[in-house]
């Protein structure tokens, strides 16, 4: 055990090899419905420049990546109140950063098997929208949840 600890400490202090191609995934902007009207569905389109969620990922040009969303079906509010949320088949849009890249609509729902060929792009932006449906007797307050994006390198 002591030897293993020493090895671990030594490794932690050692130099890092030269970085090869890198990947990054970042949430740039939260999906923000803002105030909604009780009893009336509220939709944010992925093309909404202010309220849509935005992710950005980078990967080596030419690589193929798989994209998986983990989406909530409801948001949590005050005193355990719930608010349903749905994501349509075109509620996500992806576009690479290469010149001439065309925005492509994606189905963010699970098992949609999303993939993206980087081509000459080295980064891509994903925009996410959705629809919440507050009930007529929806408890007032703030409702929150988390969307998880997983990017898998082949």
């Amino acid at each position, binding site marked *: 055990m002591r030897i293993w600890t020493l090895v671990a400490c030594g490794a932690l202090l050692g130099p890092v090899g030269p970085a090869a191609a890198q990947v990054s995934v970042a949430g740039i902007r939260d999906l923000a419905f803002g*105030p909604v009207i*009780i009893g009336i569905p509220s939709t944010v389109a992925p093309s909404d420049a202010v309220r849509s969620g935005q*992710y950005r990922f980078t990967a080596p040009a030419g690589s193929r990546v798989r994209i998986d969303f983990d989406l909530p079906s409801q948001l949590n509010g005050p005193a355990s109140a719930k608010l349903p949320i749905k994501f349509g088949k075109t509620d996500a849009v992806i576009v690479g950063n290469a010149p001439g890249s065309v925005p492509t609509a994606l189905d963010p729902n699970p098992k949609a098997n999303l993939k993206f060929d980087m081509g000459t792009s080295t980064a891509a*932006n994903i925009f996410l929208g959705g629809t919440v449906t507050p009930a007529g007797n929806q408890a007032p307050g703030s409702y929150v949840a988390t969307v998880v994006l997983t*990017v898998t390198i082949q």
Partner: protein
Amino acid sequence: MTRPLVALLLAVLPAPLLAQGVLVAPHAIIIDHRTRSGSLSLYNPGSEPSEVTLSTFYGYPVTDSAGDFELRTVDAPDSTAPSAAGWIEAFPKRMVLAPKERQTVRLLARPPANLADGEYWARVVVSAKGGTVPVSGLADSSGVSVGLSLEVRTVLPLQYRKGRVSTGVQLHEVAAAVEHDSLALRPHLTRVGNGAYLGTLRAVLRDSTGRTLASLSTPLAVYYEMSPRLTAPLPTAGLPPGVYQVQIEAAAEREDIAPELVLASPPARSTLVVRLP
């Protein structure tokens, strides 16, 4: 739909990374049994602290019926699976990266004593989330305000090599077709040897005079077998009726991985004829 999207993208593409996320390098980890360690470099490019967690699981890429890449995962791999997921540890496993902060994570292997020669695989998951859950908008006593925060995960391949490891790939049953404005290829690739095949697949479409009309190049990672669907754009004028030749080559080269980490193997080639009526 297109105009708002273009406006949106023009507005946001130059934006720096503002929220939670992490940059990871390298994007493929290869560990040798002699050193039993590797490293990952993490960087938080954002303006908020990022809570980062590392974990591993066993999985490898395959293709689905449409030829799209997906990850086959096994929750509890048996003894015959070449899984390294159970004995790869990250140090540190959890951390909070301050804005613009870098952190080196060491990956240390503790393989079983009787580990046979060969290659063992795992997937490393780097999860990042912001330190706070934002609530968007203002809610007064009668209103409802809704916000969803974003978390991100990056899944990277890890290969652990012990002793003599060899690889190669065989090209079978290559299907080629012209679909609208693209050349679509569907090669069936089978790995040989005991290590995953990392390489590049290149294909060119030529006419009867030898003129190149379309080409593609894509990285390959064949762990067992796969049939990826690949496409290459055709000339905008289209293709006149005639006989064309498609040449395909899989070579053990990767632009994004250091050459010394790619297992050498002879190239695999195939040629087929495409007739357009």
